[in-house]
């Protein structure tokens, strides 16, 4: 039980740090923030997979889900990076504060 609290506390701390990063002005930092929240989820999955003592072994289900989510997260980040490259090419800025043409 004490382990649960420590690990879930770490997961929530990662989520909080990620959300903080995602609210920054730099596009790159925003992507890093997203990656951090994603890894909080993966961390929780891996922890729960290994903490199921009743099985006597590490549950492959949680691990395979974590692998799959790492791949999917990578694809999302790739799309984000492509958008960032495009933004920089056309508008010479990576500051989201300047991306304020669309209002309401």
């Amino acid at each position, binding site marked *: 039980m004490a382990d649960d609290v420590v690990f879930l506390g770490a997961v929530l701390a990662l*989520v909080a740090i990620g*959300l903080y990063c995602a609210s920054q002005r730099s596009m790159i930092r925003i992507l890093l923030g997203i990656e951090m929240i994603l890894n909080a989820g993966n961390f929780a999955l891996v922890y*729960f*997979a290994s903490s199921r003592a009743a099985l006597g072994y590490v549950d492959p289900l949680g691990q395979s889900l974590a692998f799959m989510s790492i791949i999917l997260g990578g694809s999302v980040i790739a799309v984000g990076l492509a958008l960032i490259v495009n933004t920089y090419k*056309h508008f010479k800025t990576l500051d989201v504060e300047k991306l304020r043409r669309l209002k309401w």
Partner: protein
Amino acid sequence: MAANILFMFSPFAVVLFGLLSERFKIAKLREVVAVLLSAFTLYSVWLIYTAVNASPTKVLIFSMGGAPPLGASFEIDMLGVYMAFSSALLGFFATVYSVSYMAHDTRLTEYYTLLSALVSGIIGVAFAGDFFTLFVFWELMGITSYTLVAFRKDRWGPIEAGFKYMVMGAVGSTMLLLGISLIYGMAGTVNFAQISSTLHGSGGSLWLMFSMLIFVVGFGVKSAIVPLHTWLPDAHPEAPSPISAMLSGILIETALYGLTRVLYITFPAADFSLLIAALAVLTMTFANVLAVLQQDIKRMLAYSSIAQMGYMLVGLASGGILGFTGLFLHVFNHSLMKGLAFLSAGSIIEGTGSRDLDKMRGVAKAMPVTSIAMFIALLGLGGVPGTAGFISKYILFGSAIGPGYWWLTVIGVLNSALSMVYYLRAMKTLVGKPSEAISGVKEAPPLMLGVTVAMATLIILFGVWPAPVISYAQSAAAALTNLSNYVRVILP
């Protein structure tokens, strides 16, 4: 039987034929292939529907890597096939419309591949029988839609809207992953049926309530529930019009379907209905007020989509067979109505060259057929009797009275009246005195016209003869509420 889900791989065929048509300069090959494959998708979903309907348990299972509680699986019940049918139908219309609408754009191979992958992703989410499958197709749906919103990448608007949508959507899906991991930690499984038998009614522990909130946030971002809606009024107007139709017509509804399914199988209705009712009131009121202020026609339609999500949440809050019938009937009708509204708005914008309502004053003279289709869509969205929208709104708002949410009915009807303000304003603009700006505007090309006319006909048809759709929606709602049957099929 497994051959029926081959349509999931149609993006690969589209990209293959697209490359062939680029390499050997065969005009229109990829368009023809894309349209044929979207028709094939519709036909396959129809075959799956007949198979589900014929099976004694009304649940079909396709699994990979072991029998359902362990392997990744599609568990297709009437509800899944209902959502799949709506999305395949709208996907077919959007693809046919794109052939003419996107003809002047470049990189069309990518466009059709992504559109076809988007439809596959949505159908995968609807069919998913466990969180693993759901998450994979959820991300497929997300990644394709981020790319399609930012498709016209040489302009400012799509890039900004696409990035905003990407960031919010990615945070939403990471929240979803966190929720999945918590549920997995508590239940030790990701299969819906097994989660339901382990957690449903097990008493609300703190972590269970926490994971429910996380699910509401995770699905709520994609389904644009206020206050998580801020990406939608940017993304929907900036995307190409067929993509706006897909996003507004079916993608946000698929997210709502995910929310409904996950909440309903994991938690007792009493836990979430008040929260959802409060979100419904917030969503529809906020969106309707902001929609009145819009000057851009697609932005107005985007806010109207958020408001319609608020109406659908009423169905989820009131629950029961009536509430879910209303919800899913409105999902289908809204996919036709909002799809038509965006497609005909796309034709008008293509004609007049502007999204500003003032600059399309009097366009009905120049584009009579498109304008009449737009009228039918807007009247349907407003819930005028004789259109499909009336029937589903009637059931939705009526369903809230039974479980004691009469105030939800009152607020819903008032909101529906308020929404007529901006629909009527748009209609008045279209038939107003023509300005010089629209001299020389011609009626849309025949293919675009054909799609809008077909959809308008369906809206009127299901407005005056709603019986088949209602019974279809009822069987979908029954599949959701009959939880014990769903569980028993997978865990005998």
